[in-house]
């Protein structure tokens, strides 16, 4: 039921802020049908006021005709004065709680649902909300042109829905600039310019790195963010970066880029200040603690887990925390993978294979030719498309004394060329490899390719 201010019984009390007595409900201007339905005969109402603001109306009624005298009015006014602040507190609390829930939901929806999944690289992340407030921490991991991967972290100063919403905008802006293939420093400078154009005065820190999984080359830049940690082989170290000012702090800030490389097995760990900021403990000391804790991690997932276990206090967090880690996995001496028969896996296969071939001593031209041949054999396995049902195929690669052998096998038959321009695949494999064998049987097709890669 909605009663307009100034109309009906409660509406008039609210508008005029006076006590009103109605002796006979039947013959009065009553808008609330509930009062009539309940058979109420007489009514007395007073306004509920908190610090001069009207927050509601308190009324009592009787089923029999009754007169409410000055004493009744006084008693009801005292009751209203006592109740009003409590009611207001409860209302505010539920509004706050609602905002908290909304902010929480927003925060969750703005973080990646799942991280990218690429052969040869593994990633893991955590977001931990503060015990009482929602913050503006975020992380992101995404694909970039030429098979590179981007990893980002950021922290919007402030809390609540506003910080969470800005976080979402910055995360999107960074991703959008990054996929245009700008370098980390340039990307952060562009996000800074984007923030500069936003209404209001906001500040955020962020760090962004680009990994080339084929070579392990890593470029990173920071805008006022805490230094990342590199973990590998039982050791960990802080990457000493020269950070640019935070985003939104000074216009025309420029990020210095840092170039390094991740050896096979090494990982980069980004985190936000909520993980290391503790009262009365210098930041350098708690970062050192973090380094000590993540040292033992052998995977990105384990690094996140150790960081949370080692640094998040039992009583909960005062500030939210984001952690994201990316590991440049060690490739085994022999590759063996089962892949879905989906053309989109081809690019990943080529990247992991090139990296593996390089580790086996292949030069650029041999690596390119073997990769092309394997790509053709995989294409054929995918094109077999036995049925619309999901299918998969296998790829195995090994090398002995400079002789690379690669086997691609599936449960279909080698597809013969269709049309005049088909069949280039096999011709290319023939021309590019030293030896090719196609074993086709009832259980499937196996393409065995060999090439010598060392002089």
């Amino acid at each position, binding site marked *: 039921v909605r009663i307009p201010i100034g109309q009906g019984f409660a509406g008039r009390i609210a508008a005029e802020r006076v006590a009103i007595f109605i002796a006979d409900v039947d013959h009065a201007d009553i808008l609330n049908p509930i009062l009539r339905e309940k058979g109420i005969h007489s009514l007395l109402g007073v306004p509920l006021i908190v610090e001069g603001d009207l927050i509601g109306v308190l009324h009592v009624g009787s089923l029999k005709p009754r007169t409410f005298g000055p004493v009744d009015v006084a008693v009801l006014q005292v009751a209203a004065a006592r109740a009003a602040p409590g009611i207001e507190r409860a209302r505010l609390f539920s509004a706050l709680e609602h905002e908290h829930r909304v902010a929480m939901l927003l925060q969750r929806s703005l973080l990646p649902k799942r991280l990218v999944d690429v052969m040869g690289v593994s990633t893991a992340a955590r977001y931990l909300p503060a015990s009482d407030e929602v913050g503006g921490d975020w992380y992101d991991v995404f694909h970039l042109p030429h098979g590179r991967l981007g990893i980002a972290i950021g922290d919007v100063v402030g809390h609540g829905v506003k910080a969470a919403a800005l976080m979402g905008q910055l995360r999107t802006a960074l991703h959008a600039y990054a*996929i245009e293939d700008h370098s980390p420093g340039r990307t952060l400078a562009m996000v800074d310019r984007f923030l500069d154009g936003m209404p209001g005065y906001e500040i955020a820190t962020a760090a962004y790195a680009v990994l080339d999984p084929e070579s392990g080359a890593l470029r990173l830049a920071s805008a006022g963010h805490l230094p990342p940690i590199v973990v590998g082989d039982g050791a960990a170290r802080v990457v000493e970066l020269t950070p640019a000012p935070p985003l939104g702090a000074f216009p025309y800030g420029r990020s210095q880029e840092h170039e390094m490389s991740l050896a096979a097995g090494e990982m980069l760990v980004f985190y936000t200040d909520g993980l290391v900021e503790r009262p009365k403990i210098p930041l350098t000391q708690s970062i050192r603690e973090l380094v000590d804790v993540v040292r033992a991690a052998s995977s990105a997932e384990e690094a996140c887990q150790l960081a949370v276990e080692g640094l998040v206090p039992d009583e909960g967090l005062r500030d939210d925390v984001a952690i994201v880690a990316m590991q440049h996995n060690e490739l085994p001496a022999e590759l063996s993978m089962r892949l879905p028969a989906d*053309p989109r896996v*081809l690019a990943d296969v080529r990247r992991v294979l090139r990296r593996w071939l390089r580790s086996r001593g292949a030069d650029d031209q041999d690596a390119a030719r073997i990769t092309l041949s394997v790509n053709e054999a995989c294409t054929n396995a995918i094109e077999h498309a036995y049925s619309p049902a999901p299918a998969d195929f296998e790829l195995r690669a090994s090398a002995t004394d400079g002789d690379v052998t690669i086997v691609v096998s599936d449960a279909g038959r080698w597809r013969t060329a269709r049309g005049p321009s088909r069949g280039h695949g096999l011709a290319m494999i023939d021309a590019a490899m030293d030896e090719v064998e196609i074993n086709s049987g009832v259980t499937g097709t196996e393409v065995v390719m060999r090439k010598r890669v060392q002089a």
Partner: protein
Amino acid sequence: VRLADVQFSDHGRGAVVGLTGEIDLSNAEGMRRAIARAIPNHAVVLILDLSEVDFLDSAGIQLIYQLREDLRARGQVLQLVVGSTSPTHDALTLAGVTHHVEIVETLDDALRASRAVGGERDSPHGP
């Protein structure tokens, strides 16, 4: 992120289609359709610039041959641009494309040649 991108530019008699990135089974057909839709009628030569292509496989070669057929039906000629030391050139050589489609080293060479074609609308390579 997209594996490859296409850029179109019109140079009068020569229409240039620049490909960047990697071309394989996942995107070759979509690319061929995008190119076929974008060919201007007034162009005599379609210059397919592969200089910035990182990878090209049999699906990409299929694209080239089909494009050549599409163009031939319209009385237009296909010319490829790719540096002779690039892996893309190596793939074209392995597949024998170099025997069937004219390839020049640089886009400038291709544009100069397209201006020299004059009013001739016949394919210099014949059917």
